[in-house]
């Protein structure tokens, strides 16, 4: 296995920030660590980067134990949340910064390499600018180039999109994905944004309170969550108790109408959200009261609060 994390635990002041974390990543794969703030995802990333040492467990890269290797010697590079560009250096100097630590490179090949990478991230016009004059998106590109130019075996990204506005976030997301596929980089991507994780990742690791809750492809995670935490964290979920089983129904899988269907209830809330409308339906199923969420796309069906409606579930998924 290319990158292998084995039973890693990290404590801060006797509190376990990461508990028994194991993960295997293949070469060229993009894996996201997803979870609410404080779930340990950044701590895990810092351990892969070498900034923190695990209390227990090991990290292997191409079968070499890198657990104890300091960050400056680790063939792993990080793009930080705030980009961490050196404010006293310009764009080109920031990108060549890491190359200068390689004594074997000539000055010319250093600058050639840097220029090539600056080109790939589309910043050629800003080479001599001070990084403090750049916008958030541009800083992000420079940070990416600065890491990529070193040809790291694994690229770590720590919430790289969280400081950008909504439009730019979508654009950069696609570009990062494109560059990652083009250069075939193995990448670990930390985010708390489920949509971001779903759109960019080959696989997602959902974390909570330091523990892995589920590992899987975006589709597996969304459509077959293993537990209630994952179901609730990725999108919204109706959770029904049937005997000893819990059943998950996504709001978009609820069918709604005035004609008779399996269940009956009353609409208690309605939120118009543009391309869909979200309803809350008060109902009783097998003697238990629920408030069922139903998301209806388009406006061809329109219900009002207090309406008596029928509904059914198009797709259900049991949790073990």
């Amino acid at each position, binding site marked *: 296995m290319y990158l292998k994390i084995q039973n890693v635990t990290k404590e801060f002041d006797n509190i376990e920030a990461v508990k028994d974390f194991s993960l295997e990543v293949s070469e060229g794969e993009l894996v996201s660590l997803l979870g609410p703030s404080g779930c340990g995802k950044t701590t895990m990333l810092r351990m892969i980067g070498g900034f923190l040492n695990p209390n227990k467990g090991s990290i292997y890269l191409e079968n070499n134990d890198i657990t104890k290797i300091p960050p400056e010697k680790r063939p792993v590079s990080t793009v930080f949340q705030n980009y961490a560009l*050196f404010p006293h250096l310009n764009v080109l100097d920031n990108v060549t910064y890491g190359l200068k630590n390689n004594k074997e490179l000539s000055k010319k090949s250093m600058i050639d390499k840097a220029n090539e990478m600056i080109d790939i991230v589309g910043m050629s016009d800003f080479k001599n600018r001070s990084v403090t004059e750049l916008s958030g998106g541009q800083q992000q590109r420079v940070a990416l180039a600065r890491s990529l130019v070193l040809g790291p075996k694994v690229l770590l990204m720590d919430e790289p999109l969280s400081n950008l506005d909504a439009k730019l976030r979508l654009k950069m997301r696609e570009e990062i994905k494109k560059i990652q596929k083009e250069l075939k980089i193995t990448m670990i991507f930390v985010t708390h944004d489920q949509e971001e994780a779903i759109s960019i990742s080959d696989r997602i690791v959902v974390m909570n309170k330091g523990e892995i809750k589920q590992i899987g492809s975006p589709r597996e995670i969304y459509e077959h969550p293993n537990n209630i935490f994952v179901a609730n964290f990725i999108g919204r979920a109706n959770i029904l108790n049937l005997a000893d089983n819990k059943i998950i129904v996504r709001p978009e899988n609820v069918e709604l109408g005035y004609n008779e269907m399996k269940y009956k209830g009353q609409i208690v809330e309605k939120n118009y959200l543009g391309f869909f409308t979200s309803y809350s339906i008060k109902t009783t199923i097998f003697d238990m009261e629920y408030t069922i969420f139903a998301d209806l796309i388009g406006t061809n069906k329109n219900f009002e609060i207090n309406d008596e409606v029928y509904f059914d579930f198009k797709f259900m998924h049991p949790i073990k």
Partner: protein
Amino acid sequence: MKRLSRGSRNLDAPFYDIFDLSTVFIISGLILIFILWPITEVLVKSFFPDNKFSFEMYRDIFTNDRKLIYNSLFISTLSTIGTIVISTIIAIYATFSNRKIKNIISAILMMTMISPPFVSSLSYIILFGRRGLVTHRLLGLSFSPYGWQGIMMMQIAGNVSIAALLIIGIMSTIDRNLINASLDLGESPASTIKKVVLPLAKPGIVAASFLTFVKSIADFGTPIIIGGKFNVLATEAYLSVIGRGNFPRAAAISVLILIPSLFIFQIYRYHMDSSQLLSTSGAKIQNNDYYGFNMGKPLTIFVGLITFLFLSFLVIQYIVIFLSAISDFRTGKLIFTTEYIKSVRASLMPSFFRSIRYSFIAGILTSMIGLLLSYYVERRNLKIGKTIDFISTLPYIMPGPFFGIAYILAFNGHPLALTGTGIIVVLNCIFRQIPISTKAASASLKNISMELEYAARDLGSSNLKVIFGVVMPLLKPAFLVSFINTFTATMTTVGAIIFLITPSTRVATVEMFNVLRDGKYGLASVLACMLIFTTLIINVSFSSLLLGKAKISKE
């Protein structure tokens, strides 16, 4: 804030290499030797006067010199109250004036901050003394202005500047919308000041009170110069050392001076903790382009008048000193003379240049030690970090004479016999200013994301390269602030180093104190002008450097 708490605030490995280890070892050693040890020596000496434990020194002071304790507390309390009242009024006026007036007020206040002590006393004596320009020459009077009233006035005059600047600093961060909201809800301007402005400015007011009290209780110079027969503890400590060489007694008095300071410091800490929140949240949303706070006519006139009178007093004081440096009015007329300048050139120039030399060395070394110290305390998981940080802030609450006497006691023999050398003077100035330099560096470090260090390391930089290639360049502004502060403090200090000065290590402020005590006011004026001029040039030139750097440090 958020970015600091991500993952961890510190790098996991406190020591990367031999450089880290030796730097931390050396700095910790310096802090222990030059701060903790001297302070301990004072306590030991005061309780073991003849190497045997005894309360004798304290008993003696409490039975024979109770009057001194009473005088000290009396004068410090009055000075503090007076200083705070006046500086709060000035702060209110300055904060709610337009930018131009605010800048002028700040500039005048800054002047006193960079002046040597006793400037007020000097001009006071020239104007109102026994042979004073106003009292004797103009009014033909011959009365004695000496006594506690004089001390109080001079201490107030000397302390208002720093107090007012501190309070202005906090008051300016108050969100104007809070004031507008209060007016909008029907409070009058006067009660808005009372109920909104003053409570929110409390951190500044409390800090200013603490500083003023410590400075005033530690002040022995003003009572000697214009106290007449009125004596205080600090004078007694000075006379015990300089006149009688009675160190145990001086040590005991120093401890007595320290006790009320510690007490006030506790109050200060208590208040700072509870109101810090207010001041920082206020600072975030400040919107001070709007200065339309109309206090109403009577209040504006009252506050403005007091500010105007006090600032005029400061300005007149400088004019008087400048004039008396270059003229002679003993005959009743103003006659231009270069007599004083010549006599300073003849005998006092070495001391003046020594002052500059010491100040430069102290400025650079203090900044370097302060920066490295705060870096290791803030950024590395040092087990001893907190302890060292605490010890390094102690000089901040030590009254000057305490710290001076501490150095004589600690370094007058084996293993570090430094008394009489210039090194001890410089060391004293360095470690006296370490707290401020460390605080400046810590504040800057908090604004430099930990991620920058991670990034540099991640890109393959060695430990040394991270510290000297990334962290230190970004701390340049803190270095400059610390340098300016230490340089100015060393140029103008008397309190601690007067105990350490020998004829071969005399500095300008001590010379000034001596000629002032001997009644040579012309010479004192020339020295005062030279000191003011030098610190002014350094402050202005280094501050402009700082402003140039401000752009870079922002990110």
